[in-house]
């Protein structure tokens, strides 16, 4: 096992739990109808984000994807401003203009975007700026494995390699892209692909924060040196809320009777429709869909939960963990109270 200072372990736990509790809070607010539109959480990715962010220094930039909340929380954005933003409040971080997919902090060089793959070019540009200014800063791109088929991300791998830029590409691999299993639409092996661009790459267990921490600890110092270069980390994870809150696949497992009836009616009608494909093909299609729904259940499992795992691996720190948790909880709950106050008072979302 990797040797890490207790202080570091506690710091990592704190980062992860703060993000987790914030997103659980967001879930509650979303369920209560206080947040409109989609809500993509980073629950399940905390080990990856914390393991990376704990190595960053001031001036490093981070480009996130549609799951921007954890990096924003862990990088130290004012939580009240962040939560207000996610609620769409005019006093939010972005005056309510952005919402959870379009969070921005100039001060901390943090961006996000709802366009798949765009964190690649974005991180490349920040790294370019760092190199141009001859600082030792780096830029991190967070994205999912599904994004690895998006042209601009592939281009940005090459661009970072060809221009020798200090970009840490972090692929959070849950093997799902909405309801597509990425392995079914991805040719070859991602790490080979990345190495084919001349970038050093490594696959790690993204549910284990100490593994992530250690991998990044090795990677980053080289990136900061005067001979810059990009680095790529592929880290597995699971989103146990599925793609977003209210994920239609997961709804099956959570409210099977209601959902199943709504879907299988039209589905069976389609299978039995007079015109169409050969019956074996139809059956194969339905089987495929059903098996997809079945597979989506895996996401619900807690076995890959980075926080549970960390707690289990560090039983000796249990007391401290409990303390961290309760202080974060009460902090966050107070925050929510204050915010709901603001919202109620001003009467607008």
């Amino acid at each position, binding site marked *: 096992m990797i040797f890490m200072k207790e202080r570091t372990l506690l710091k990592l736990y704190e980062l992860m739990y703060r993000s987790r509790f914030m997103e659980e809070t967001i879930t509650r607010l979303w369920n209560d109808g206080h947040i409109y539109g989609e809500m993509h959480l980073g629950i399940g990715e905390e080990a990856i984000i914390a393991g990376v962010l704990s190595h960053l220094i001031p001036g490093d930039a981070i480009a996130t994807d549609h799951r921007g909340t954890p990096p924003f929380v862990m990088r130290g954005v004012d939580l009240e401003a962040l939560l207000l933003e996610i609620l769409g409040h005019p006093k939010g971080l972005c005056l309510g203009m952005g919402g959870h997919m379009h969070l921005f902090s100039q001060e901390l060089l943090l961006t996000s975007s709802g366009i798949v793959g765009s964190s690649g070019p974005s991180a490349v540009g920040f790294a370019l700026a760092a190199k141009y200014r001859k600082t030792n800063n780096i830029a991190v791109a967070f994205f999912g494995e599904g994004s690895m*088929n998006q042209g601009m991300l592939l281009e940005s791998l090459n661009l970072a390699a060809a221009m020798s830029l200090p970009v840490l590409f972090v692929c959070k691999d849950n093997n799902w892209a909405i*309801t597509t299993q990425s392995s079914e639409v991805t040719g070859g092996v991602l790490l080979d692909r990345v190495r084919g661009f001349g970038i050093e790459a490594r696959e790690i267990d993204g549910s284990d924060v100490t593994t992530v921490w250690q991998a990044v600890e090795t990677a980053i110092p080289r990136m900061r040196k005067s001979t810059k270069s990009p680095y790529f980390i592929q880290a597995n994870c699971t989103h146990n809320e599925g793609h977003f809150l209210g994920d239609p696949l997961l709804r099956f497992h959570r409210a099977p009777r209601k959902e199943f009836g709504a879907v299988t009616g039209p589905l069976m009608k389609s299978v039995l429709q007079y015109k169409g494909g*050969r019956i074996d093909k139809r059956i194969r299609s339905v089987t495929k869909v059903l098996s997809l729904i079945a597979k989506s259940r895996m996401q619900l499992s807690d076995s890959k939960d980075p926080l549970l795992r960390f707690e289990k691996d560090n039983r000796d720190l249990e007391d401290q963990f409990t303390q961290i948790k309760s202080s974060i909880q009460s902090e966050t709950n107070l925050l929510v109270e204050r915010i709901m106050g603001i919202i109620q008072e001003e009467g607008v*979302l």
Partner: protein
Amino acid sequence: MRTMEFAEAIESALKQAMSENPDIFLLGEDLHTLRVNLLAQFGKERVQSTPISESAFLGAGVSAAMAGLRPIVEIMLVDFIGVAADALLNHAAKVHAFSGGKWSVPLVVRASCGGGYGDGGQHEQSLWGWLAHIPGINVVVPSNPADAGNLLLSAIEADHPVIYLEHKLLADYWLDYMGTGGRENVTFDIPEAGAKGEVPNKWQPLPIGEAKILREGSDLTMISLGVSVHRCIEAAAILTNEDISTEIIDLRWVSPLDTSCIINSVSKTHRVIVVDEDYLRFGLSGEIAAIVAEEINSKFQFGRVCTDFTIPFNRNLEDNILPNVNRILDVARAFTYE
């Protein structure tokens, strides 16, 4: 006649078309779930799921159409078309011209569009005027279930590229995915007549470029499409009480525009408001002004209610940036009526 919801109508028309023509197939992300019923009926050759590679699969759709098939390529949200714009701009739109009219591209690009449900500025754009700027492409935007099904057939049967946009406030599954997520405590201003309505027993393609007069009137012409036509209907009802008689044109086709329908109406009313959820400038509303100004030999009053800014996430701000009844009324009331 039967009654259907908007998305149901599209699916029903697709089923009819796919049953009749084996050259039609679908290509796009997540189609095994988004089009699960079609998958169940037609099998996976006809409903193909892709990686998140819009520029490759839209480009592939162009040449598959050139090979004589009738691909319907889905770009989940029209906002994402930026990553694949070259396939439209320099290929789909130009092959017919480049080949001296010898080779056509019977491609349908299907995408959801529009806002009003709190998803932010990268997911709620309309962009139909933007896309229609490119010569060689048509753009169609249905506002109700009957049109949704019939116009889809028009798009499929056209021998040139047609972009077919379905508004997320009308298509229930999109709104469920992107807006409510299965919740019952969030609501949106869904125009009922757009979300559900009578549809023909057999789907029939409508002529390309034909607008529809939803309401006749003599003082003022409102020209709109998609969800906004329903805002116009609401506004027109209010204006009736103010003795303003409103004619409403549902364009249906952004391109080609039904110039004569527009001209006929404005020749009568001399007042026109374009209500267009796409961006204000350099788009549809301007084009309509130009057509009227070119063709009408007398003074007319012109106003427009469009989206003039990046769409905010905040629901209040969003509702005011997107065309709404009050903004339409403001413009209508600012006109002079003799």
